[in-house]
């Protein structure tokens, strides 16, 4: 379970070492893409906890969501609509619901473990 966390730190380190900055015009699209990526990541963790994890689904979702979110924002800008708000709301809501599920899963696991331990002692 430590590998993904290490990956996150490694990625962050890599990003801060790299002197790549996105042109200001695309800054908004990048932010929306980051939101989509975070959502996919949390979805993946939830999958691991609920034992319904599928690596292909995670990675495909990760790329398509991030790309589509950025594209949607771009399209919105050209249509004169704040379409990126749709992405922000959709991914924001999913982010929070995923976080809720992860919390519940973790608590359930902890309780299950405790109950098992108690059962073992009783036995």
């Amino acid at each position, binding site marked *: 379970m430590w*590998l*993904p*966390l*290490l*990956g*996150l*730190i*490694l*990625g*962050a*380190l*890599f*990003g*801060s070492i*790299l002197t*790549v*900055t*996105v042109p*200001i015009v695309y*800054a908004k699209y*990048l*932010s929306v*893409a*980051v939101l989509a*990526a*975070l959502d*996919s*990541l949390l979805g*993946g*963790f939830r999958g*691991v906890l609920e034992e319904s*994890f599928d*690596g*292909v689904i*995670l*990675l495909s979702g*990760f790329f398509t969501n*991030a790309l589509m979110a950025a594209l949607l924002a771009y399209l919105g800008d050209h249509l004169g609509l704040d379409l990126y708000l749709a992405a922000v709301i959709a991914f924001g809501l999913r982010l929070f619901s995923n976080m809720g599920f992860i919390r519940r899963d973790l608590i359930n696991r902890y309780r299950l473990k405790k109950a098992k331990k108690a059962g073992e002692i009783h036995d």
Partner: protein
Amino acid sequence: MLNWKKHIPLTIACVLTGLLLTVALKTQTALNSENVNKNQTLIDLIENLEMDTQTLEESIGSVQKQIDEVQKQGTSGQGMVAGLQNQVEELKLRAGQTDVFGPGVTIVLEDNTAGAEMVKKNNPELYNPEDFIVHDKSLLYLVSALRGQAEAIGINNQRLVASSDIRCVGTVIMVNSTRLAPPYEIQVIGNPKILEATVLNSDEYFFLQSKEMPVTITQQEEISLPALKGSNTANYANPVKEGEQ
């Protein structure tokens, strides 16, 4: 084996998310600091230019003093030159090139902060900050109304002469290209009673009253005004001589 299948995609996603996140953060901070830096350079530019103006004005003042001294040296008791000298003094007084003092009125205009607070509290949807601040037009109209009766006019220690400007630049008023801040104090030398009556009867005064702007007019026995700090030489306009055209 199953563990690896789980961990590798998750780790890839994590690395990419971390990368994207830091790049986005860096872009955003660069964006913010760029704005701040741009503003800072502009502020520095304005401050430097204002300092330049001040030193230039000071050098004009010292050169004018030198000219005065030279002129005085040349006129020791000679009848005609002394007469001309007096004329120069008189003209300088009219042109606003000398410090002056005399009786007159002081008009103080302030932003209507009390009214602004009231409206903000009671019906914020009607609040328009433009309605509660002193505008360049108010100063301009009041000064125009007084021009006929006044012998010397100054706003916040800026002497008004024929070439003076009263302009609005963003949120500040500029007089003689110097930034002023409220309260605006218009000092006028002339017959105090006539000046006060002129202000009280001007359209602008009624307008300011209707907007409930705080305006105070006081007659004063002695007002002193500084000379014009800048230069107002004519470089392009030439006088038409009689008989030539």
